[in-house]
């Protein structure tokens, strides 16, 4: 993420704070910064979400289109991810600077969704072998304030929860060409089961302890960490090690355990909030004006 300079004394202060379980802003090692969430902002996308995690700002839009399924998976639809690190986020992303980070996040998301436990892709099939729904998930990183993986995964989960896929009926077969009938009613849609979609937890190692939701200063102090994707039923679907330092196998195991517990808590609270938002009226949309 963004490289910032810190003096030796500041790094020592952060190190001792982590040992003491009291970080610079008063959080414990396993606390997240406040998250602000909203779905349904982008009216011409099938589903959208905006998530703010302190300074990190992520906007996700999901568009659904009909296409032919992959030849080796004729009964399944698919998800295509695309991450764009906007140059507004931080000066390092100017020009092609953000491409590496964007590709990393994209690949990690694809891996975490690849497991069969996360999302039931056969729900997206329309006509076996011929037509299926493809969900294009576009992620725009508007501001970079540390902990991008977590923010992106939560925003994607919220956007997929809010995605409305139009109902489609298969009319009579006209020779070899089946006719697909799209419902006239814009509200006649179906939703995906997003219970088990993974949430990503970033754990960075500072000294002998690890912390959740690091700020850019804390990321600068740490040399290694892991990014773990945890699905709704506490299963780990993908793990990636970040940073150039090394990790002891014992600390790796305990980090994975903590990651899956934290991920499960985040998942429950997120699902609860998304359900709550559904019951609110449409007139209460805030958008970007605040």
């Amino acid at each position, binding site marked *: 993420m963004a490289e910032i300079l810190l*003096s030796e004394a500041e790094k020592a202060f952060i190190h001792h704070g982590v040992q003491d379980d009291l970080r610079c802003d008063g959080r414990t090692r396993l606390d997240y910064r406040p998250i602000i969430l909203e779905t349904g902002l982008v009216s011409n996308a099938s589903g959208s979400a905006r998530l703010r995690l302190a300074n990190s700002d992520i906007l996700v839009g999901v568009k659904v289109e009909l296409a032919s399924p992959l030849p080796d998976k004729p009964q399944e639809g698919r998800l295509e991810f695309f991450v764009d690190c906007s140059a507004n986020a931080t000066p390092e992303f100017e020009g092609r600077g953000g491409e590496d980070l964007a590709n990393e996040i994209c690949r990690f998301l694809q891996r975490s969704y690849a497991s069969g436990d996360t999302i039931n892709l056969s729900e997206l099939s329309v006509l076996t072998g011929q037509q299926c729904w493809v969900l294009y998930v576009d992620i725009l990183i508007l501001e970079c304030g540390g902990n991008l993986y977590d923010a992106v995964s939560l925003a994607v989960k919220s956007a997929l929860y809010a995605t409305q896929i139009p109902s489609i009926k298969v009319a009579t077969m006209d020779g070899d060409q089946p006719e697909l009938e799209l419902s006239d009613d814009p509200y006649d849609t179906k939703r995906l089961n997003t219970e088990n979609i993974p949430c990503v937890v970033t754990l960075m190692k500072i000294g002998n302890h690890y912390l959740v939701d690091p700020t850019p200063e804390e990321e600068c102090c740490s040399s290694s960490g892991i990014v773990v994707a945890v699905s709704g039923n506490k299963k780990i679907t993908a793990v990636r090690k970040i940073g150039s330092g090394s990790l002891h196998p014992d600390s790796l195991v305990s980090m994975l355990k903590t990651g899956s517990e*934290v991920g499960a808590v985040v998942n429950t*609270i997120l699902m609860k909030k998304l359900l709550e938002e559904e019951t609110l009226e449409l007139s209460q949309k805030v958008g970007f004006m605040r």
Partner: protein
Amino acid sequence: MVDIRLASEVPPFHIVADSTEPKHLVTPGSLITKETGFMRGHGTYMQDDCLYSSVAGVVERVNQLISVRPLKSRYHGEIGDVVIGRVTEVSQKRWKLDTNARLDSVLLLQSVNLPGGELRRRSAEDELAMRQYLKEGDLVSAEVQNIFNDGALSLHTRSMKYGKLSQGCLIKVSPSLIRRQKTHFHNLPCGASIIMGNNGFVWICPTLLDDGAGGFVQNLETVPHADRQAISRLRNCVTALAHCKMMIYDTSIMHAYEASVNAGLEIKDLLLPDKIKEIALMVRKQFEMEKE
């Protein structure tokens, strides 16, 4: 552990204005006046005999001079300001510091106090040993001595109270929120010291016991838990005041600190949007009570 709010639940941060006079606010491209005979100041441009604003801010008029003071801009240095800068470059006989200004500020080798307080001419050995005093990433508190022709600031640390900063926490706010006061160094009663740089960098550290031997010795011992709590709470209070666009000076910070302690808020609760608004309102109420 995790706090997720919906955007509609977050209260809007009203700009808590200190005075109730209506100000002439303008946005880029808006017309200020059609009358001729005015001199153009900063933040304005002339087109077809009309004066337009080029920044978003407040119109200021001094006799015939009209200028627009932007609401949010980079730091504009004045001689005598206390600033906090981070070393970005070590060059020949000078250090370049980032002070949130348009150009990196310059700290000349001859403008710093050598350790031990010696007063002598800087030699070639001093030049080669510059990195031992200050290297990239170090934080320094200094005063603006001079302004170069291109607008870059020339700083100096020729006093025992300035110098390299040790352990603590740095907060970046908008320079317009820092009030110009007699002294920018305060030892707060809650057990921490604070330096409010005019450039918007606020430094909170454990109470300085003595003035430091020329300001170059760094103390890397563990800070006690109580001090650390005071520093974290102050950091969250300053961030809350900055969020609500309130002026930051020692009185307002102490009011916010006491308000948060009296309300029984935990330090990490001060990060929540509704608690931030609560603290700002309590500080404002305190000021209104003091006025009466």
